[in-house]
């Protein structure tokens, strides 16, 4: 067991996968960085990923497997999809997940649909990594968390981890998985460290974690929202409010039992979600519980979600936008008193 940051956990999973399977390659912009630069030292990793996630991988695995590309998202994802369907196991990096907009055809119309359109004959073991999340002033085009959009797309799986332990195990599983997986990394978590085993391990997709067990209210939350919810749960525990935090970890497949059973045991539900004010992940969970667990509820479902706006830039505006700890606490209090 060793302390590992979220960044290190993700890097470790890619290294784990590349060591166990020679067909795993990384494709993206500035995974190494510095190609075509004028520095005469050609052994330098100029970037190692925009947040340093892939630092060191080019040095270990070389040009053939850590493939730096131009800034060309359609071709990155398309090439990765084509490579996946012909025998490689690529991990493509979109950098900021907001950029899916310029590459979405290759995810939505191609990789996701190959298997179905081709009558079950295709296998597309593709992972697309991308950075999500508000909180660092990155504003409208570098801050969104569009996992709700991917979740609604049949044919792809969606992983949204909240800590290094989950990230490492889920990413290795995602790379081993034979279906396309969108892997979402919340940028404010990259430096957060938790205990992680030293050797490789995989976590199955579609199994929720219960980072806190409690009896009064269930909080369903992903990524940064899960971390915030744990913090709020610990605070409220001192007041005698017992909060069960359910971190689904993957939105597709979704651990419906894990959510419904928790709600059935507590009778109250708060959902914290950074994806969207409309048709978001929170709405999906709310609909699940309303349709399959309605008579287990003691109070109306509370959703802690952003307003129906792009992510703003200036700190007070951005803080007003984020579904953070104060809002989570208020929602829990409201639902417990209801």
């Amino acid at each position: 067991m060793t302390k590992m940051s979220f960044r290190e956990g993700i890097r470790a999973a890619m290294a784990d996968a590349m060591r166990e399977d020679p067909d795993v390659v990384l494709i993206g912009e500035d995974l190494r960085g510095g190609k075509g630069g004028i520095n005469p030292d050609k052994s330098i990793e100029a970037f190692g990923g925009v947040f340093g996630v892939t630092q060191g991988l080019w040095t270990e695995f070389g040009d053939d497997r850590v493939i730096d590309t131009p800034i060309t998202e359609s071709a990155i994802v398309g090439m990765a999809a084509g490579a996946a369907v012909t025998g490689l196991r690529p991990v493509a990096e979109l950098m900021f997940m907001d950029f899916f907009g310029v590459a979405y055809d290759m995810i939505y119309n191609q990789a996701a649909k190959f298997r179905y359109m081709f009558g079950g004959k295709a296998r597309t073991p593709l992972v697309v990594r991308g950075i999500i999340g508000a909180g660092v002033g990155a504003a409208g085009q570098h801050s969104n968390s569009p996992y709700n959009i991917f979740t609604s797309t049949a044919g792809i799986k969606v992983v949204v981890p909240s800590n290094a332990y989950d990230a490492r195990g889920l990413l290795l599983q995602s790379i081993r998985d034979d279906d396309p997986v969108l892997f979402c990394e919340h940028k404010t978590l990259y430096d957060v460290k938790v205990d992680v085993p030293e050797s490789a391990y995989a976590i199955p997709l579609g199994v929720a974690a219960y980072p806190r067990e409690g009896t009064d209210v269930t909080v369903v939350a992903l990524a940064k929202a899960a971390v915030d919810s744990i913090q709020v749960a610990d605070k409220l525990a001192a007041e005698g409010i017992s909060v069960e935090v359910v971190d689904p970890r993957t939105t597709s497949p979704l651990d419906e039992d894990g959510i419904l059973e928790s709600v059935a045991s507590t009778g109250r539900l708060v959902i914290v979600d950074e994806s969207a004010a409309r048709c978001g992940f929170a709405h999906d969970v709310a609909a699940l519980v309303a349709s399959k667990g309605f008579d287990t509820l003691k109070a109306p479902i509370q959703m802690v979600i952003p307003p129906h706006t792009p992510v703003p830039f200036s700190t007070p505006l951005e803080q007003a936008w984020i579904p953070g700890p104060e809002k989570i606490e208020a929602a829990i209090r409201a639902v417990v008193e209801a």
Partner: protein
Amino acid sequence: MELSELSKEQLLDAYRKMSEIRAFEDRLHKENTGGDIPGFIHLYAGEEAIAVGVCEHLTPADKIASTHRGHGHCIAKGSDIEGMMLEIFGRKEGLCHGKGGSMHIADLATGMLGANGIVGGGPPITIGAALTAKYKGDGNVAVSFTGDGGSNQGLVLEAMNMAVVLNLPVVFVFENNGMGEATGAEFAVGAPSIAKRAEGFGLPAVTVDGTDFFAVHEAAGEAIERARTGGGPSVIEAKCNRFYGHFEGDQALYRTPEQLEELKAKTDPLSIFRDRTDGVLDPAELALIDSESEQRVDAAVATARAAALPDPSDVDTDVYVSY
């Protein structure tokens, strides 16, 4: 000169494929008017020399990606026409079990990575297949077929740039039939030609007569050989005409019936092939091939009509490998 390099068997095989494509498409044109085929059909008649001229150089391990007008590419790459016909009729035993249809026929066993309903969708996938071949060092190549309409799509241009940057074993074939849906290439392609524009990406690009099997065959042979031997990507622009509308049901008001008759008379790849092989191949033998093609297509249609439809309970299978 190309002609003399091909054996009689190779010539007959090429003609058999072109003839089969023509018979298949002509028959679908008739069948479609009966209303028994769901969805959209785009026919390849008039462009046969391109698919066959290119695919004659390919092995089953080489990959191609196609367009919405994909039947010809499937047949040229070796797909079974009965499986295709079953699929187009939406039958359970079709190549894609009735889940893809005309626009998404794929046959991974023959290296056919799928027709594609997205104009310009093929090239990015093709460079992925080329990346696999390059990484594995198996000497295989990948070929994309795209139209003049697709040549203007951003992701096609991205794919060409990426192929040059990574020196991938890929050939981009642009089938310029002069019309993107109902809009002419004259209007829509801003560059002097698709090949001229492609040269700007830093790869060899040629324009050939896509109605002449031998012209296509020669250019494709050179480009594919370059890709196989590590020489990187190439572009072939092959000019041709399509003998039916954009899709079945298109009235084709962008040309007159007289103009169409003239195109058919002057630019039919099958007649041109017959003319070019005059004195080498026996016309009676070619006529026999034509009638055999029609019989095979007849049999495929009969099988498809009699075949079972998919079970509704199969609606949610084949989405994921596991979920």
